[in-house]
């Protein structure tokens, strides 16, 4: 197992195939990061929204509908 390129510049250029290879990896990892972050954000927003509802319910127990 050895590093396949002489220099870092070679590694970036990849004999002219660099733009294709790096663009592919960039797009893929961007998509993977989106897949990972989006459910985390959704969960955060959901919890925030539910907490607001709970506060409202505590302030006004008569109108309480959302939490049993």
């Amino acid at each position: 197992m050895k590093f396949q390129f002489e220099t870092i510049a070679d590694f970036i250029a990849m004999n002219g195939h660099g733009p294709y290879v790096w663009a592919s990896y960039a797009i893929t990892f961007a998509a993977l990061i989106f897949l990972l972050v989006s459910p985390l954000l959704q969960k955060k927003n959901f919890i925030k929204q539910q907490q607001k509802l709970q506060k409202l319910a505590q302030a006004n127990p008569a109108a309480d509908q959302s939490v049993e």
Partner: protein
Amino acid sequence: MAWQWFHRLGSPRWFYEKTTAWMPWLAALSIALLLTGAVWGLAFAPADFKQGNSYRIIYIHVPAAFLALAGYYIMAISGAVGLIWKMKLPFMVMKSAAPIGALLTFVSLVTGSIWGKPTWGTWWEWDARITSMLILFFLYLGMIALQQAFTHRDTSDKASAVLALVGMVNIPIIYKSVDWWNTLHQPATIKFTSKSTIDPSMLYPLLIMVIGFYAFYALVLLLNTRVEILRRESRTQWVSDLISATNKRA
């Protein structure tokens, strides 16, 4: 006795609480595998003697394509389980699987297209695999469109489960047909991957990437399913307890 776990799957709460502990481990495992595989594939695997360095796209293109296809089957099978045993949880898995699969299909299409430029000299070639991928992408889009069309959640779940099953029966037929169509119109173009000639030193990073993609897929599917569980069970006591518990920590 052995089937107890299966009956428990009927309870979204049990599933949510059970999987909470898995999340950090699964995240660490999949990110470690993906980074190892990517660095190995990009920097340490030898260059292909025919395609040079552009073949390094294989390490993301092929796993993404695998998961795109496997994702459709996972979606359809969870839909079938939901329909047959009338459980809530499989429908939540099915709903979460659709956009993930669509995005992975899109990634494999884009990376395939970029790979095509240095290999075939064109951004788009009506190659059998790419064409099948495109049709798979259409199947996902139809699935997502149908899921969003219904206002009634129960109808939406069951209708999309039927569509997913019909799609699952059709996928092998579509793949075979496109394959046959392709040999008819353009025999013997350069194949991305010829299985017999791939060297082990190139294969190991690919294997790591495939396992990494599977682990990552499991991770994001679980994360999305867990959010879906919270949304659908938002009126239950256990979710509201969970929310207030989060309140105290924050």
